[in-house]
C-alpha cells in the first residue's frame, strides 16, 4: 500500500514538478515564520549561512575573502559565494543553465528589462513586499524602486546606481567614464603634441612607443592593447572611441547623446567602422599588442600596471592600474590628452537607477536576511565599503577614512597607503591580507559615488573630497593641470572646454525583443564580433575592405536591417524618454 502511494505521489510529483516549483516559489517568498515580517530586521543572526550571489557584474568567483567578508560576517553572519558569469565566460550560458534549473541564487544582480521581465513570471525572483517596509536605506530611493516594479504586482527588485541628482547632471564626479587617457610622462617626453582628431593620435602614440620601447620589467611596450571579454553587440574596444564623440550604443545603433545623430554601426561611414580602421592602422604601425586576441582583462590590467601599455580607453582602467603614489611622484601616470574635436559622452544621473537590479531568489535560504543585507548595501556603511574601488569607494569608516577635526572626511594614513599608495596589509583584527584582495567582489554600485552622504554632507567618493584633492597634488597632476589651464580635475577641464555631452539618465531599458529579432541579433552579433577582430588585424588595406564588405553582406543576409530598424526605434524612444525625464525633474 505504501509503495502504491509513494509511486503515485512520485508520478504526480514528476508531472507537476514545474507547477510545484512555481508554487513553492510563491510561498517561499513569504516570511519564514509565516507571520509576515513586519517587525524590523534583527540586529544579530545566530547561525552562519553561505548565500549564493549571482552577480552579472562580478569579476571574481568563489567565496568573498578579506575585510569585506569580515564585515558581512560580523553584521549578518553571512558568507558570500559569488557566482560570476563574467568569469565563467560564454555570454549568457551560466544565466541560462541556472535559470533552467530554477534557481539563480539567493541574491541576484542581473539586468532589468528582458531578464527581469522573464524572471518574475518564471517565479525565480522572490516578492520582497513583506521586507520592503523594513528596508529603510533602500527606501530613500522609493521613487526609483516604485518605478522599477511598476506593473509587477509586488517588489521583485531594487534598482542600482541610484542617486539624488538630476537626470541631466553628469553622474561622473572627477573623471568621465570614457576618454583618451595616455601615459602623460611619455606624452611630455615627445613634446606634448596637440592632437586634432582620433587619427592624429596614432603618430603621437608611435612616438611615445619609440621613446619607451621597453617597460620597467624589460618587456616590450605597446601603445594599444585590446581584450575580448566584453564583446557584446559589437567588439567592445572598437566602440570606445565613438564615446569620445558623444555616441553610445543602443543595440546596433550608435546614438548621439543629444539625439542629433543615429548611426548604424555597419555603415561604412559609422564611427564604429572608423575605429576598426583606426585599430587596423595602429596594428600596421606596430602599435597593437599581438596578445590582444587571446588575453583577458586581467592580463591586460597587469600589463598596464607594469607599464607595458601606453593608452587606455578609460580612466578607471589606466589610472587605477598605473597611477600609484610612487609613479605619480615621479611624474608618471595616465592622464587625459584631449583631442581637439572630442565631445565625450557622459552618463547623466539615472533618475530611476541603472541597468542592473538587485533581487532575492525565490529559493533563497533565508530571504529575510538576504533582504537585510541588500538593504544594508544602500546604507552609508554599505556604499563606502561595497562600491568598487575604481569608483572611489573610501572603505570602512575608522579604517581607511574618518571625519577630521574640521568635520571633513579625510583618508587616514592607512587609507592613503591602501587606496592610492600601491596597497597595504590589513591589521590582524581586520582579518589580515591585503586591502585590495579583501575589497567587495560584488562590483555593483548601488548609490552613485557622486551622491552626498547624508551623514557627512560630502560625496561618497573620496576622490571628490577636498582633503584628498589637496593632499593628492603631485608632479603628475601639477604638470597636467599646468597644461590644461589649471583645471582641478578631468571633468572640470571638460566642462570648461565644453568637451563633454551628457546623455540624460532616463533609466531607459530596451523592451524585450521578439524571439525572431533576438535570434537574428545573436547570429548577427557573432558575425560582427568575428569580422571586427579580423579587420583590426587584417594584413592589408585591401583585406580590410574585403572583410568589411563581407561583414556587411553576411550581416544583411542574416537580417541585420530588420534588427537595425528595431534598434533605431529604441534609440529614438530613448531620446524621447530623456527629453521627458529632464522636463519631469526640471
Amino acid at each position, binding site marked *: 500500500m505504501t509503495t502504491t502511494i509513494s509511486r503515485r505521489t512520485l508520478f504526480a510529483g514528476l508531472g507537476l514538478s514545474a507547477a510545484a516549483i512555481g508554487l513553492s516559489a510563491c510561498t517561499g517568498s513569504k516570511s519564514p515564520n509565516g507571520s509576515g515580517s513586519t517587525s524590523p530586521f534583527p540586529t544579530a543572526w545566530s547561525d552562519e549561512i553561505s548565500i549564493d550571489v549571482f552577480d552579472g557584474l562580478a569579476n571574481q568567483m568563489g567565496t568573498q575573502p578579506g575585510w569585506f567578508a569580515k564585515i558581512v560576517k560580523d553584521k549578518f553572519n553571512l558568507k558570500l559565494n559569488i557566482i560570476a558569469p563574467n568569469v565563467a565566460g560564454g555570454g549568457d550560458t551560466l544565466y541560462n543553465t541556472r535559470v533552467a534549473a530554477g534557481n539563480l541564487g539567493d541574491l541576484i544582480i542581473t539586468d532589468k528589462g528582458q531578464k527581469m521581465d522573464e524572471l518574475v513570471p*518564471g517565479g525565480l525572483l522572490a516578492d520582497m513586499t513583506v521586507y520592503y517596509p523594513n528596508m529603510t536605506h533602500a527606501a530613500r530611493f522609493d521613487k526609483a524602486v516604485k518605478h522599477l516594479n511598476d506593473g509587477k504586482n509586488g517588489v521583485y527588485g531594487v534598482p542600482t546606481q541610484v542617486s539624488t541628482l538630476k537626470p541631466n547632471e553628469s553622474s561622473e564626479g572627477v573623471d568621465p567614464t570614457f576618454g583618451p587617457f595616455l601615459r602623460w610622462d611619455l606624452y611630455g617626453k615627445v613634446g606634448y603634441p596637440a592632437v586634432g582628431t582620433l587619427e592624429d593620435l596614432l603618430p603621437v602614440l608611435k612616438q611615445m612607443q619609440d621613446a619607451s620601447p621597453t617597460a620597467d620589467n624589460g618587456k616590450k611596450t605597446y601603445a594599444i592593447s585590446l581584450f575580448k571579454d566584453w564583446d557584446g553587440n559589437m567588439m567592445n574596444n572598437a566602440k570606445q572611441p565613438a564615446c569620445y564623440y558623444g555616441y553610445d550604443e543602443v543595440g546596433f545603433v550608435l546614438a548621439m547623446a543629444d539625439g542629433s545623430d543615429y548611426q548604424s554601426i555597419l555603415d561604412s561611414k559609422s564611427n564604429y567602422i572608423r575605429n576598426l580602421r583606426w585599430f587596423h592602422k595602429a596594428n600596421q604601425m606596430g602599435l597593437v599588442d599581438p596578445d590582444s586576441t*587571446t588575453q583577458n582583462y586581467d592580463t591586460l590590467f597587469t600589463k598596464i600596471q607594469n607599464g607595458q601599455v601606453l593608452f587606455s580607453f578609460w580612466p578607471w582602467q589606466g589610472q587605477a592600474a598605473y597611477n600609484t603614489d610612487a609613479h605619480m611622484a615621479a611624474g608618471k601616470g595616465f592622464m587625459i590628452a584631449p583631442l581637439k574635436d572630442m565631445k565625450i559622452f557622459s552618463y547623466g544621473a539615472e533618475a530611476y537607477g541603472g541597468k542592473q537590479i538587485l533581487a532575492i531568489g525565490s529559493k533563497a535560504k533565508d530571504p529575510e536576511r538576504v533582504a537585510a543585507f541588500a538593504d544594508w548595501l544602500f546604507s552609508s556603511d554599505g556604499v563606502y565599503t561595497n562600491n568598487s574601488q575604481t569608483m572611489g569607494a573610501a572603505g570602512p569608516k575608522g579604517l581607511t577614512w574618518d571625519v577630521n577635526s574640521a568635520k571633513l572626511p579625510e583618508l587616514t594614513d592607512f587609507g592613503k597607503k591602501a587606496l592610492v599608495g600601491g596597497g597595504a596589509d590589513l591589521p590582524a583584527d581586520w582579518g589580515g591580507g591585503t586591502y585590495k584582495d579583501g575589497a567587495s567582489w560584488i562590483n555593483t554600485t548601488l548609490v552613485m559615488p557622486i551622491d552626498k552622504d547624508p551623514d557627512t554632507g560630502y560625496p561618497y567618493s573620496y576622490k571628490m573630497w577636498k582633503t584628498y584633492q589637496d593632499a593628492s597634488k603631485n608632479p603628475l597632476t601639477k604638470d597636467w593641470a599646468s597644461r590644461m589651464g589649471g583645471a582641478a580635475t578631468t571633468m572640470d577641464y571638460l566642462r570648461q572646454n565644453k568637451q563633454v555631452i551628457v546623455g540624460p539618465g532616463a533609466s531607459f531599458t530596451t523592451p524585450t525583443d521578439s524571439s525572431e529579432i533576438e535570434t537574428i541579433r545573436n547570429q548577427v552579433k557573432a558575425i560582427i564580433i568575428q569580422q571586427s577582430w579580423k579587420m583590426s588585424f587584417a594584413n592589408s588595406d585591401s583585406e580590410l575592405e574585403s572583410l568589411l564588405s563581407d561583414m556587411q553582406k553576411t550581416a544583411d543576409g542574416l537580417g541585420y536591417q530588420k534588427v537595425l530598424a528595431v534598434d533605431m526605434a529604441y534609440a529614438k524612444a530613448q531620446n524621447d524618454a530623456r527629453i521627458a525625464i529632464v522636463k519631469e525633474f526640471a
Partner: protein
Amino acid sequence: MTAPPVVTDQPSRIARGRGATSRRGSKKLFLSIVPLLVLVFLFSYFPLYGWVYSLFDYRPARGLSGSKFVGLQWFQLLVSSPTQVSQIVQVMANTLGMSFLGIASSVLPLAFAVFLNEVRSKWFRNTVQTLTTLPNFISWVLVYMIAFSMFSSTGLVNNVLVSSGIITIPVKFLDSDTHVWLAMAGWGIWKTLGWGAILYLAAISGIDQALYESAKVDGAGRFQTMWYITVPQLMPTYFVLLMLSVANILNNGMEQYYVFQNAFNKTHIQVLDLYVYNVGITGNSLSLATAVSMLKSIVSVVLLLTVNAIAKRVRGTSIV
C-alpha cells in the same frame, strides 16, 4: 509442501504444463531484456521528445509550458535567406571535412602499430607506447593549454624564433584561419595515435607465428612480412573500426573545436555540434539550436540509407 494432487489425466496435463513452462520461460526471457529496452527507450527514444522545443519559443525562465508555440518558425528562419543557408552549408562542410580527414588518418595508428611492433628493444617500445598513449587521457582543455603555451604570440615557439632572430613579429599560429582543418586533424592525431594503436598491437600479438616463420623460410624480409602478413591480418580489425568511425561521422565532438575556436578561425572550425552550442547556449536561442541539431538526425538517416544502398549493390544484402 503440499502433497501433489491426484493425477488423472496425465498426457493433457503434461501438454498444458509444457505450454505454461514455455510461456513462463518466455516471460522470464522478456523480463530479462526489459532493463535494456527501458535503457534504449530512455536514452534513444525519450530524448526525441526534446524536439518539441524546436516548435516553441522556449525561454528557460518560463519553462516549456509558459513559452509560446511558434510552429515551424525556426525551420523557416534557417532557410529564410541565402546567407542563413550558406552558414549551415559551411558548418556541414566543416563537420564532414574534418570527419573525413579523421577517417583518412585512421590508417596512421595501423601503420604506427605495425612499425612499433618491429622495434626489437622492449623498453624502447614500451616507452614509446606509453608516451603516445598518454595524450589520449588529457582533456581537450589541457591540450589547448599546451597548444597555447607553445604557439601563442608569447609562447615557447614564438619566443625561440624571435630571440634567435629568425622572425621579428610573432607568428599567429592559433588565431589564423589558414589550414584550420589540417591543424585540427593534426591535434586529433597527436592525441589519439597511441591509443588507436593499442587495438592493432593486440591484434598483432594474436597473429599466428607460424605464418612469419614459414615466410622467413621462404626468404621474406622484414618489410615483406609486414606488408604480406601483418597488414592483411590486421585488415578485418581495421575495417570494423572504420565502419564504426563512419557511423560516427557527424559525432566528431565539440570539445576540441570549442577550446580552439576564436574570432579568426571560427568560420572553418564550427562543426555542427559546436554550432548548435554557439547558437543555443552562447547565443541564447535554444529553440533554433534544437532545430539545427535535428539536421544531424536527418543527415544521419540520409547517410545510413546511402550506405545501405551501396551495401545492397556491392554485397547483395542490406544492413537494415
